């Protein structure tokens, strides 16, 4: 498909003034899918721990295409497209399951977990009165008609896939800066799945990336954070990016390794900015520092990593999760949270992670706010697409910082986005 949306007007030349039209145009959205989700990029598909046994599978998406992450009999992980090679049907309906094969219900074509076509009903025709009728042509070779297989990369128990088999390695894709934050969280310990949250957010998918590249809002929008002392704009912090400025890490360190000090610590371990406000159940913030938090000479208490385009890795004190962005048209996306823990967690730590997960997800004390502001932003964008948003806090340039009072990461993401979206049309037939 070749689509050339009208050129956007970037006021002031750079990316500090973002045209509303980047969020409102369906043609531009199709181009994003082609250029960002289906070519040259890695997308998150899940955690190995979601499919621990041979035959386990999970249905998910890359961009807007339905894919299945499978574990074959030999333990190998595969990602195949959920499109029957015969008539194109999206055959797998279950979200999770275990199967030795996939059978399309329409004509019962069957596939192995790695996508190999196994059986074609009446391939050799049907006998009637001593004569064989129909069947596939003699030169029909099942090897040529498997499911579309994606390139797969697994690191630290996290599974990524790409329709583009020429994509660079996952490590090069992340780059050394982001890789060290990724490896800090996914440091080789086996993961355990604690549960999921799913929500539909009626806004453009990029707004969720921007939300987690925006350290300006947490202390202002999320009054819960401020009230109970989890986020302060003057926390020790850094904003880091890969060389392309597409990925980022917001790194912050709360005083005393996440634990409150002084009098409040004796009561709730939380120092409240409104001292009179107390949590009915202080265990929501029963924070216990963990050894893996340390990275070189620093011990961040929160690292929010945005991996462009499809995923956010969250560590907010003891709560760890992946957040999968699943676009559905230019004006909506599904947001799927996978809360996890580690195999060596004590039962108390598992309880603690589960309790702290109450801050997140569609009804989370904190995250409920983000879904709403994205929805309301999208509403305004649709009403005047010729207008633009401002992202000029901290200047108009792009660069890493040792503070949070800047929108540099958003400017960085659009710098990369413009490079990809404004590149001349290649003979991009739309990938496999």
């Amino acid at each position, binding site marked *: 498909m070749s689509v050339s949306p009208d050129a956007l007007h970037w006021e002031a030349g750079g990316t500090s003034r973002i045209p509303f039209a980047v969020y409102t145009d369906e043609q531009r959205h199709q181009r994003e899918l082609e250029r960002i989700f289906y070519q040259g990029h890695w997308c998150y598909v899940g955690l190995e721990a979601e499919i621990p046994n041979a035959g386990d599978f999970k249905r998910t998406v890359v961009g807007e295409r339905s894919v299945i992450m499978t574990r074959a009999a030999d333990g190998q992980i595969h990602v195949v497209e959920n499109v029957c090679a015969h008539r194109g049907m999206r055959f797998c309906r279950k979200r999770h399951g275990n199967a*030795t*094969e996939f*059978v399309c219900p329409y004509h*019962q074509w*069957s596939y*192995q977990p790695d996508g190999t076509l*196994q*059986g*074609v*009903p*009446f*391939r*050799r025709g*049907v*006998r009637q009165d*001593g004569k064989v009728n129909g069947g596939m042509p003699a030169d029909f070779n099942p090897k040529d008609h498997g499911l579309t297989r994606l390139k797969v990369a697994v690191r630290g128990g996290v599974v990524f896939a790409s329709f583009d088999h020429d994509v660079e390695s996952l490590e090069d894709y992340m780059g050394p800066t982001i890789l060290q934050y990724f490896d800090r969280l996914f440091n080789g310990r086996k993961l355990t799945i604690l549960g999921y949250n799913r929500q539909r957010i009626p806004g453009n998918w990029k707004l969720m990336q921007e939300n987690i590249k925006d350290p300006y809002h947490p202390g202002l929008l999320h009054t819960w954070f401020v009230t109970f002392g989890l986020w302060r704009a003057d926390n020790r912090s850094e904003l880091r990016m890969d060389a392309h400025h597409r990925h980022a890490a917001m790194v912050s360190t709360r005083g005393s390794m996440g634990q409150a000090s002084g009098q409040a610590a004796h009561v709730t371990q939380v120092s409240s900015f409104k001292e009179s406000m107390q949590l009915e159940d202080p265990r929501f913030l029963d924070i216990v520092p963990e050894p893996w938090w340390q990275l070189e000479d620093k011990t961040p208490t929160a690292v929010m990593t945005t991996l462009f385009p499809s995923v956010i890795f969250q560590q907010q004190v003891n709560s760890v999760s992946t957040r999968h962005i699943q676009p559905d048209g230019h004006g909506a996306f599904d947001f799927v949270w996978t809360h996890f823990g580690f195999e060596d967690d004590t039962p108390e730590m598992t309880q603690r992670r589960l309790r702290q997960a109450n801050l997140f997800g569609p009804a989370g004390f904190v995250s409920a706010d983000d879904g709403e502001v994205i929805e309301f932003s999208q509403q305004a964008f649709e009403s005047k697409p010729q207008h633009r948003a401002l992202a000029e806090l901290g200047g108009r340039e792009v660069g890493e910082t040792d503070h949070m009072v800047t929108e540099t990461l958003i400017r960085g993401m659009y710098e990369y986005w413009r490079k990809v979206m404004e590149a001349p049309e290649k003979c991009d037939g739309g990938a496999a």
Partner: protein
Amino acid sequence: MSNWTDVAAEADLFEGAGIPVSPGGRDIALFAVEGEVFATDNLCTHGNARLCDGFVEGHEIECPFHQGRFDLRTGEATLPPCTQPIKVWPVKVEGGRVFLSLG
């Protein structure tokens, strides 16, 4: 002592595929291979296909749905996606009639 049931005329059989018979409501397929007769359960243990509609290759029957195979002599599954054996039945041919021991 076996109890033999007359299920078909030998002349109804032909090489290359099977014919269905249903003694006592059972669904059984008969196959002729190089003049010898074999009987198996007709329903494939993998999908809902009838093996009598399949294709005989040597002493194997290839299922018409997913191209898995069974050995007609033992019932053993010899090619995926079939993994579970099919039941085979004792056969004798006498006076142009095919008898099964359904005991």
